């Protein structure tokens, strides 16, 4: 990265460690199995819990054969609504904006298939599993409501997490009336379940009124506080450890009922208890992406400029809580239009409550919007990339604010060049490969907000020349331990191998939420500030110490680098950190820092990462099997801390786009509401053979407003743009416009 990117002024600069494509610091731990995930914990005296789940989607549990379970060898305890001890907080309450209504055996109501209805604790996993089966539940079942048409429609008070459900700017009807062309696009997206490689698991152990939980958490401090509230102990009595997460994607940000039951069980039986959900149980209470049915109208004038854009989305949620996939909001901030209208309708169905799943709203809404843009471009006879450029927005279409930075034009150019977009025939079915397969090219724009949460960090410089950074940051496979350590090293003015980063525990300063693609920006800002603070204190010591070669340099006149403070105006005069501390009689010195968005910048600017994704698909001309033969993305996301890890995040997101376009599809039986493909044999995600060539390129972008470090985020943006680009390539290959994701062979058959 070029050195023109501004760095915070002070004693340290970002860019010695940050910006380097380092490999993962925890790579060896992970590939050798030494990294400890929640379910790997086996404290002495451990008992195992398994929950029985409902096989009906709506009704009441009328009987459970508790006696049969209890007499099974090894079964210790059976928890049902009849004996479940009280909780300090109502599982059906909404204590804060990240509270989801959940099932912790508060009553016998069944509201979706897969809902926990009892918990069995036993000496072994096998005994607990069989005990749960022996409960042989009986139900008073009511017909399940599954699908857009069976569910109850309503006007939601909000979509996503607290976003307004509707938006309008300008007069869309006037825009359509003035348009030379109006195109309509209808598309559906299915229910999708997160299915991180690591299924959810928790190990809970009580010591008096102190609780230790090993549980993967994307929001460590928030979860710690929630556990404390449920179990009526002070937050400082709860230790939550989450050193490694095997993928979260949003599903591990929110507390869920079985976690509460496991903690309850540990208290009831007076032993540590482990609960690890099965893959099948991942299709129930742990959140999912709700299905959407989208309808878009695009009005375009003779020059190919949008005159109006309308995006309506119907999103499914549960019968008892609200999380609406905010799909239509994907149209708010991308293409320039004088008139913009978005609208959401909710449909209540008998599934668990959806939740944020990697790019919630952006993924499904981008798929719809990019298909609609392609359809409009084709109707105009215009290259779809040219059409997007004609509707490039210089300011945020929804708010009118300037962008804090926007290198999307450069992304289009870089992506098109890397892909070889030039010369693409306008009409479909024009290209074949040497084997006779239909070949199609499609493009989609990627975009994702650049939010920040709040985080704190604590830095320590020790006399031995090492540094310690402490923050409850979250390593969930994205590489946080590595990227944040790079920022820590720069913040402390140390080489990377002299810095220890302690993360993943509630005993550490609050690292905020690892979600919304804002973790590196938020935790990184806190870390850099904490490191800078420690070096500032060290500089004060040195410049006031007559024995130091830095004496009299003035507090602002020294810089920290590789474990030494140097005079800014004379590099030859320097002193090691350890020597300064030793002479001061100190073993160490501490600094503190916080990370959060500057409210003034937030008020003034619209902040987004951008990208352009280009897809090539090959489609058998008779059998219609589809393969994404090439996927090329170019992304601008502010300062990149670790290009290797950023590309890994981006390509992972793009592969998720393949998954969205061609594979993921949770099938619920319409009569019972049960998920019928609740395992990896039935619920497909891409394998290596489905992603033969996926490349992400980074486009340089300087952002002086998003935060002091110029960091946006890369965690979710790769999903956006990709699914639409693939669908558009399928059209270009076959001439068939998909109207549902995933695109099935039968949908193309003719």
């Amino acid at each position, binding site marked *: 990265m070029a050195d023109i990117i501004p760095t915070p002024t002070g004693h340290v600069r970002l860019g010695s460690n940050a910006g380097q494509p380092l490999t993962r610091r925890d790579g060896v731990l992970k590939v050798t199995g030494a990294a400890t995930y929640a379910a790997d914990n086996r404290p002495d005296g451990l008992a195992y819990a398994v929950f029985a789940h409902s*096989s009906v989607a709506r009704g009441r549990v009328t009987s459970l054969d508790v006696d049969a379970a209890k007499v099974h*060898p090894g079964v210790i305890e059976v928890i049902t609504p009849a004996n479940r001890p009280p909780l300090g907080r109502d599982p059906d309450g909404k204590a804060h904006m990240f509270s989801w209504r959940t099932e912790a055996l508060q009553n016998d109501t069944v509201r979706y298939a897969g809902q926990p209805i009892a918990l069995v604790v036993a000496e072994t996993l*096998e005994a607990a*599993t*069989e005990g749960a*089966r022996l409960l042989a539940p009986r139900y008073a079942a009511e017909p399940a409501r599954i699908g857009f048409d069976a569910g109850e429609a309503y006007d939601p008070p909000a979509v996503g997490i607290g976003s307004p459900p509707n938006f309008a700017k300008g007069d869309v009807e006037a825009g359509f009336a003035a348009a030379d062309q109006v195109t309509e696009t209808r598309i559906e997206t299915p229910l999708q379940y997160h299915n991180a490689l690591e299924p959810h698991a928790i190990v809970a152990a009580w010591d008096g009124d102190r609780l230790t939980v090993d549980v993967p958490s994307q929001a460590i401090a928030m979860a710690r506080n929630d556990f404390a509230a449920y179990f009526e102990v002070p937050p400082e009595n709860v230790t939550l450890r989450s050193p490694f997460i095997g993928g979260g994607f949003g599903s591990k940000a929110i507390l869920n009922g079985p976690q509460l039951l496991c903690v309850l069980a540990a208290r009831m039986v007076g032993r540590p208890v482990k609960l690890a959900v*099965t893959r*099948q149980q991942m299709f129930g209470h742990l959140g999912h992406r709700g299905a959407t049915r989208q309808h878009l109208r695009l009005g375009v004038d003779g020059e190919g400029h949008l005159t109006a854009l309308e995006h309506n989305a119907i999103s499914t949620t549960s019968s008892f809580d609200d999380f609406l996939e905010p799909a239509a909001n994907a149209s708010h901030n991308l293409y320039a239009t004088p008139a913009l209208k978005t609208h959401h309708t909710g449909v209540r169905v008998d599934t668990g409550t959806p939740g944020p799943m990697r790019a919630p709203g952006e993924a499904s809404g981008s798929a719809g919007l990019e298909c609609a843009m392609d359809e409009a471009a084709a109707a105009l006879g215009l290259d779809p990339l040219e059409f997007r450029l004609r509707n490039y927005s210089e300011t945020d279409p929804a708010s009118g604010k300037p962008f804090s930075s926007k290198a999307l034009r450069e992304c289009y150019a870089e992506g098109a060049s890397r892909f070889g977009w030039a010369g693409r025939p306008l009409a479909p079915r024009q290209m074949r490969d040497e*084997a006779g*397969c239909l070949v199609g090219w499609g493009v989609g724009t990627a975009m994702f907000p650049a939010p920040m949460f709040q985080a704190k960090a604590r830095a320590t410089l020790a006399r031995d020349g090492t540094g310690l950074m402490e923050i409850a940051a979250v390593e969930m496979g994205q590489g946080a331990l590595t990227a944040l350590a790079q920022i820590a090293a720069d913040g402390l003015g140390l080489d990377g191998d002299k810095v220890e980063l302690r993360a993943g525990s509630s005993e550490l300063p609050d690292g905020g939420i690892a979600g919304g693609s804002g973790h590196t920006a938020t935790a990184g800002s806190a870390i850099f500030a904490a490191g800078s603070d420690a070096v500032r204190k060290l500089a004060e010591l040195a410049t006031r110490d007559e024995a130091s070669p830095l004496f009299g340099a003035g507090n602002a006149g020294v810089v920290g680098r590789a474990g030494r403070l140097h005079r800014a105006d004379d590099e030859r005069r320097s002193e090691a950190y350890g020597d300064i501390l030793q002479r001061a009689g100190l073993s160490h010195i501490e600094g503190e820092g916080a990370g959060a968005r500057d409210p003034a910048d937030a008020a003034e600017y619209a902040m987004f990462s951008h990208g352009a994704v280009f897809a090539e698909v*090959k489609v*058998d001309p*008779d*059998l219609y*099997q*589809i*393969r994404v033969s090439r996927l090329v993305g170019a992304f601008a996301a502010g300062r990149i801390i670790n290009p290797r890890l950023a590309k890994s995040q981006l390509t992972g997101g793009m592969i998720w786009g393949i998954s969205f376009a*061609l*594979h993921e599809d949770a*099938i619920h*039986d*319409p*009569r*019972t509401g*049960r998920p*019928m*493909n609740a395992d990896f*044999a*039935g619920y*497909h995600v*891409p*394998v*290596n*053979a*489905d992603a033969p060539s996926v490349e992400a390129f980074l486009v340089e972008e300087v952002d002086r407003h998003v935060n002091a470090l110029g960091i946006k985020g890369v965690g979710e943006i790769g999903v956006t743009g990709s699914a639409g680009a693939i669908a558009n390539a399928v059209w270009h290959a076959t001439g068939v416009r998909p109207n549902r994701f*995933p695109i*099935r*062979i*039968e949908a193309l*058959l003719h």
Partner: protein
Amino acid sequence: MNLFDYVRPASVAEAVAAASAPGAAYLAGGTNLLDLMKAGTHRPARLVDITRLPGLDAIEVLPDGAIRIGALVTNADLARDPAFVAAAPAVAEALLSGASPQLRNAATVGGNVMQRTRCAYFYDPDSACNRREPGAGCDAHGGDTRGQAVLGWSEACIATHPSDFCVPLVALDAVVEIAGADGAREVALEAFHNLPGDDPANETVLRPGELITAIRLPAEAARFKAHARYLKLRERTSYAFALVSAAASLAIEDGAIVEARLALGAVAAKPWRARAAEPHLVGVSVTAAGFEEVARRAAEAALQEARPSGDNARKIELAMRVATRALVLAAAGSPARMPALPGSVFAPVPTLTAAGDVHG
């Protein structure tokens, strides 16, 4: 998972005796059985572990040229056995198109023949399934029927057999060798699996305790080795069961087909030998311009009796297209080497040589 007895017999006779008890099940690779047990779909009272039985893991060429594959040979070992691949390339291709390397390392030949349907309603213990529980009913009717049968199904059951391996085997007249309490016997693979009829739980002709000891490929199978392909249609490029598949094998002399074999996978409760198609191909020149039309007519004959078992009518058309393509590919010749994507529509098509024999 229920409590069960685990026994490890030392001989085939001991195994048969141990497995003759009600509720017993043989355990070999366990790639299907253990999943079924964990799901609660299958709850055997006794597992008879045959993995240490001697003499069941060899691939032998018999004096008459037949190939005898021991029941405990793994899918991976068979698919990489040079002599076997040369003699039956489409069988190897089918094996390698299935599952994943890890599963193929564990799964066995006998277990592949014995694998259960992937019907979601069979797997789900809370759904009614006549195959799992006779007389319970069939919740697959009216449910998600995309993967269900279009041939040979009944009101009692619309499930399909998921094997890839069995499809070319049934085309090549493979024979199942069986040991039982009354001695050894053998059954043509084509007659081994039962169509559901009124009794879908009666899945095979095996009698209680009987054990598959080997699969035998008759010597005449080698006649087709130069023109044998397996083609498998599915959305995911690898590691997915077939939406529909076909194995085509042609014996060609002087550029004309003297004998044709066609079988379909994932269309019925058994690997489906499409005998009705085969006469359409005999005497046809594979290099003639109209071969694809002939192949299509043969494929239509193969599916003549097909009818949708739900919302899966398009599967019939797809099956015809897959069968047609498999025949065209077989006519072009077996590939000189195993394609990188075995059985895939994205595998390259070999160029047809004048002799119609690219396999050497």
